[in-house]
């Protein structure tokens, strides 16, 4: 039952993971990466690993995104052709 609920989630995850490649604005790309990781959090939760889910949520959404954004802030925002 739960497997069928997860299918649309995994599809969204696939779509966002692929769209990260084509996004030119790097900040948007970082946010879409965070979406992919958030869906991973939900998957962990459904696989009955709530502690892993909590760790993943706080590290990915809090710190990884922040470090990416700081790195982009100090270089360039748009990807060059």
């Amino acid at each position, binding site marked *: 039952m739960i497997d069928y609920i997860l299918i649309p989630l995994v599809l969204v995850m*696939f779509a966002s*993971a*692929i769209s990260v*490649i*084509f996004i030119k604005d790097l900040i948007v790309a970082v946010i879409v990466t965070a979406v992919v990781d958030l869906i991973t959090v939900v998957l962990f939760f459904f*696989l009955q*690993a*709530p*502690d892993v*889910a*909590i*760790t993943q949520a*706080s*590290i990915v959404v*809090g*710190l990884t995104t*922040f*470090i990416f954004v*700081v790195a982009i*802030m*100090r270089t360039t925002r748009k990807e060059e052709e």
Partner: protein
Amino acid sequence: MRHIFALIVVGTLGLGLFYTLSHIPFGKGLSEVSKYYVENAIDKNDPHAGATNIVTDIVVLYRGFDTLGEVTVLFLAATGLSVFFFGLKKKEYTCEPSLIVKRGTGIIFPFILLLGVYIFVHGHLTPGGGFPGGVIIATGVLLIYLCCRDYKAPHSLFKVIEGSMGTLFVIVGLIGLIVGGSFLFNFLGAGKTGELVSAGIIPILYIVIGLKVGAELSGLVKDTMEDV
């Protein structure tokens, strides 16, 4: 060209992940190691038990040495990142943060710290533990750095906490080695499952890990936000 290459990499990774995950026999019979864990971690007379969650028992008591390694890797990563950001030019901000955001952060920040402490103090009773608690504390510090630019974090305190907690972890492990014959032996006994003071050294180790990770990542946030 680059896009096609990246697409191929992502596609291969995704397919590999899908293939591997679909072949893991989740809940279908146990390997030898899992059997050992299940039989010993549930047995209440065994000193290697006591948490309400079997995963916590395994992570802290059977695999405690790995946790020491993880904390070391994290320390190296934080140091490397601060070296990487050292001396880079600072970003100029064009406008002041809003008064409302400042005030809201001032009110919310201590509660984030409190939640982090709650999560690692109750690590053996609820999902969570040292790492999530520490990271939550670090996100609180990040929030206050973003919103109150004049805030100065006690940087030397971070260093002191980090160093002393690392030492304490090793000392607890060594006491276990002396008393029980193995590193991180649970020398305090299991206690009554479900109480706050139970599960032997698990809460101590979780408090140590939580403070260490929190101080480490807060120092990382400080290094990236506050330039030298």
